[in-house]
């Protein structure tokens, strides 16, 4: 089981409490679609994804980003058992959505950048370490049901 220090717990809670769930998820997802364009293949029915401007302004991307971030919220509220909390989500991604699990890391990286850009200097090395550890656990939990 993953062990979290007090600092890590409070850092994760603090970061997510400061995120605007209406916006941050959409930004991270949009970045993923721009920076790693092959990920667009999963969103064939999202309409115009032809260039960065279109992606950043696409309402379906924004809405779906919010869904994704709300999914992350589940992990934030269940830090001591993310694996169990994500069992269904993992099955959903593997069996229904057929998402290549490599993509989880890409989205995690984009979310890290969104948070870093928002927090500026407050995104210190220790905060970065805690956040990346959290995302690594999330990614690992999402991958669990694939095998």
């Amino acid at each position, binding site marked *: 089981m993953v062990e979290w220090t007090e600092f890590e717990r409070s850092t994760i809670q603090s970061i997510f409490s400061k995120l605007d769930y209406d916006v941050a998820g959409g930004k991270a997802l949009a970045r993923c679609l721009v*920076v790693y364009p092959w990920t667009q293949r999963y969103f064939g029915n999202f309409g115009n994804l032809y260039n960065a401007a279109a992606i950043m302004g696409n309402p379906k991307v924004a809405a779906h980003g919010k869904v994704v971030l709300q999914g992350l919220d589940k992990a934030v509220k269940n830090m001591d058992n993310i694996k169990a909390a994500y069992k269904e989500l993992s099955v959903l991604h593997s069996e229904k959505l057929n998402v290549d699990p490599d993509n989880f890391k890409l989205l995690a990286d984009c979310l890290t*950048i969104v948070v*870093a*850009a928002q927090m*500026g200097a407050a*995104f210190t*090395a*220790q905060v*970065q*370490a805690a956040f990346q550890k959290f995302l690594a656990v999330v990614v690992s939990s999402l991958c669990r049901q694939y095998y």
Partner: protein
Amino acid sequence: MVEWSDNERAIIADVWSKIDVGEIGPQTLARVLIVYPWTRRYFGAFGELSSVAVVLANRKVATHGRVVLNALDVAVRDLDNIKSAYSHLSSLHRYQLHVDPANFRLLADCLTIVIATKFGAAFSSDVQSTWHKFMAVVIAALGSRYF
């Protein structure tokens, strides 16, 4: 050979012009040592690296961070020939320093995050894409003499 659009060239030059190597270099290397602690094994001669505070205060880390980031200048100035420009550095990392090339990506990730914290919203998805591409080319060039 890597192809760079005019826009990409402009973005890279612009980002680089806003980077203070003396400030960003030390931060980047410190983050690598903190967030990915196994990397400390490469720096046995740097003295104390046993805690976050100590890494952040370590003068050798700061100096070396500057050295590493200064070396990126070579790539920025010669975008069309990064592989040959880095041929010597690649051999150095392979034959003398014995650095696992997986670590190049860790450093690139930390540098990207530091830049994101400094640039905030100005680190748009277009800038992130271009910078990511530049880092990927640098990483490939540094790994080019390994096999």
